[in-house]
């Protein structure tokens, strides 16, 4: 592939397009009558990167943005090309998407459905974005996915782990690269059974909202299948900051495993409390008490500090993977920013490339064409082994990582170690699985 050398300054300028818009005419938008919303007419194509920049997940959003900018750079032929070199599909040439230079706009979701939709709307209506991507919570992902469906643009979901995103709230214009609660559970349960035995009793603390519930449901089902029992499932309010009163009763409940179905700040605080209460030093039913965190992210691990040591969980991707794709991505991201990428960065980078590749293969930016190209698409070389975007629900199926908090981290980024790469076959499920039932994909909407 061609390696256009471009300095950072030049790239940023081209990537800058609209945004603020002061004294700048707005780009042609909505009803451009090319058969679909925001058909790019000039020499550029605009993508909308909608990530949390304020609020508790701002750091995760910042990492996503870094990866997006890197992806744009690679798509436009800058840098070392990253995973474009290892990607099994060879359509991308480093000349943008379908020959049009890739530009982008950024927005702030604030991790609120409302703000996220407003931000996405402005990208669609004002900036002429033909694809929206990003986010750091399932609520936001589902809300923005619904919007993109109605507006007629493609949505690549970013970080969303709830079963509902590709379950009862799935949409024809939306695709999810990230794994989900069911897959976490399916990957974790065998490892847990192997490590801790099949005669275990689990106590669940669950964040009291949709994601928490689907996560808990999945884990409970998967572990009970392995012979575990469930002592209790206690719902904790989202706004809880001190989990001591939820953690304190665990030790005398007869359970010998604590499952924390929490994410972000909730998970950091509940895990910290659990470790403080000395749960992991105790023996119950003659077995060592253990804690499990089904969904890990590196930022969370960092926030929880030394408390994550030895604690099992699952993650979508980790920079220590040694396949060619992962290595190329870590190298290229590390060169650019000086530290290894997070799973959020990896997910959104992949999604940007996959979108671009689908456009190339479809020969159009038309969301219906792109969706068709993505449906049932199988590929490799982007980490996580052989991957498939299932046509029926637009869920991505790939290997899932079971990880554990590292005992002796060598740097502030080296917090998790991969225990097992659970093969894709083990985490797959039927389209009509009851945990995912109740929605309809609908048909793709190209907008006006």
């Amino acid at each position, binding site marked *: 592939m061609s390696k256009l050398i471009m300095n950072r300054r030049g790239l940023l300028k081209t990537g800058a397009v609209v945004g603020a818009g002061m004294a700048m005419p707005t780009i042609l938008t909505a009803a451009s009558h090319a058969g679909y919303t925001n058909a790019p007419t000039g020499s550029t194509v605009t993508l909308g990167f909608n990530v949390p920049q304020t609020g508790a997940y*701002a750091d995760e959003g910042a990492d996503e943005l870094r990866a997006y900018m890197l992806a744009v750079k690679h798509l436009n032929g800058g840098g070392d090309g990253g995973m474009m070199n290892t990607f099994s599909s060879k359509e991308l040439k480093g000349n943008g998407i379908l020959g049009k230079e890739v530009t982008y706009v950024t927005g702030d979701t604030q991790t609120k459905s409302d703000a996220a939709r407003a931000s996405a709307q402005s990208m669609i209506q004002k900036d002429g974005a033909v694809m929206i991507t990003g986010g750091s919570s399932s609520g936001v992902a589902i809300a923005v996915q619904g919007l993109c469906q109605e507006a007629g643009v493609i949505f690549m979901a970013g970080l969303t782990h709830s079963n509902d995103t590709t379950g009862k709230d799935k949409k024809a214009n939306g695709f999810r690269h990230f794994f989900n609660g069911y897959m976490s559970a399916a990957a974790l349960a065998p490892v847990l059974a192997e490590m801790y035995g099949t005669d275990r009793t689990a106590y669940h603390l669950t964040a009291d909202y949709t994601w928490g519930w689907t996560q808990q449901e999945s884990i409970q089902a998967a572990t009970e299948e392995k012979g575990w029992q469930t002592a209790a499932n206690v719902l904790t309010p989202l706004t809880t900051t001190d989990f001591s*009163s939820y953690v304190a*009763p665990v030790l005398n409940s007869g359970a010998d495993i604590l499952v924390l179905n929490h994410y972000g*700040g909730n998970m950091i605080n509940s895990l910290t409390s659990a470790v*403080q209460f000395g749960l992991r030093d105790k023996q119950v039913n003659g077995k060592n008490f253990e804690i499990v965190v089904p969904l890990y992210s590196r*930022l969370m691990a960092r926030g929880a500090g030394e*408390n994550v040591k030895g604690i099992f969980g699952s993650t979508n991707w980790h*920079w220590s993977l040694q396949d060619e794709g992962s290595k190329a991505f870590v190298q290229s991201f590390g060169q650019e920013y000086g530290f290894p990428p997070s799973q959020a960065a990896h997910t959104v980078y992949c999604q940007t490339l996959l979108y671009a590749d689908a456009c190339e293969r479809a020969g159009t930016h038309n969301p219906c064409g792109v969706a068709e190209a993505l449906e049932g698409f199988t590929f490799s070389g982007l980490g996580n082994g052989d991957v498939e975007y299932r046509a029926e629900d637009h869920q991505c199926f790939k290997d899932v990582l079971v990880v554990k908090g590292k005992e002796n981290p060598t740097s502030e980024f080296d917090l998790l170690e991969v225990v097992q790469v659970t093969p894709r076959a083990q985490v797959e499920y039927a389209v009509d699985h009851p945990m995912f039932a109740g929605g309809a994909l609908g048909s793709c909407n190209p907008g006006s």
Partner: protein
Amino acid sequence: MDAILLQILNGIDKGSAYALIALGLTLIFGTLGVVNFAHGALFMIGAFVAVTVGKVLEISKITLDPEKTDFLGNPAKIKTPYITEWFGDFGFWLIEWSVLVSVIVAIPIMILIGVIMERGLIKHFYNRPHADQILVTFGLAIVLQEVIKAVYGANPIPQSAPDLLKGSVDFGVMIGMAENSVIYPLWRLVYFCFSVLIIGGVFAFLRFTTFGMVVRAGMADRETVGLLGINIDKRFTIMFGVAAAVAGLAGVMYTPINPPNYHMGMDFLVLSFVVVVVGGMGSLPGAVAAGFLLGILESFASMPLIKDAIAAVGLPSIDQIIIYLIAVIVLLVRPRGLMGKAGMMEE
């Protein structure tokens, strides 16, 4: 029994934080008549003083390790904190006990921040309506937390307790109960003792020093004290500094309990206002009592037993809303709060 004892411990532990923040809040209201929405931000700043101290102590000399490589294949860096080079074991000790160092550092810093805040901003709002005070301090709270976010990011930053005080103790055995019945984290007990110390200190200061007596007299009747030729304003300014220091210390000591983040102040703000209201606006003992009381009630509400019982009647679990529910009930039934002055806000 042990479950109840555990929740009481949790309650007084949460209550410690509530009481410390509410104490300063009510002190400011009692002395200056100002409703300070930025008080939660002072708690947060205290926590970030601890973060900063930790980071400063760990400023390191970087040497390259030729044998190891980092993730990009470059030679790995070895970090040696300067302080350990200079002071040896004492340096390591300082890093380990950085919370303690932070406490000492935080006192002057927080008093200074408090005094600057009062002289620079709050002073100009004494004669403006409460609504204006709420609004300007609310704005200040946003600014302070966004500045912290710009510097430290949005992700929580873990701080550990000294090794000696990490982990948990068997509190049950200490008081003659069966083994393993009441296990409680050591640091949370330390936090409780610390807060009792601070609360006691503030009360003693107000009760037994001349300065404190004048301040109390001024709280009761500002004009008369002014007529006696005493510069009450200056003392009130210092009390603002003290209130800020109390909130700040609460924040410093809180860091090993939960990793601090930039919005922790806002999380505590609404709660601490509820505490002040329940205790009685302007009442110091009220704030402390209400802090512990609400902490305990909140803990009880989150017991699985109680949650199940409530769910059985078909009601939503009240641990989500108990604090607000209590606030509403108190405001309607006894608006002056548990220990507020009679007649206050009863109209």
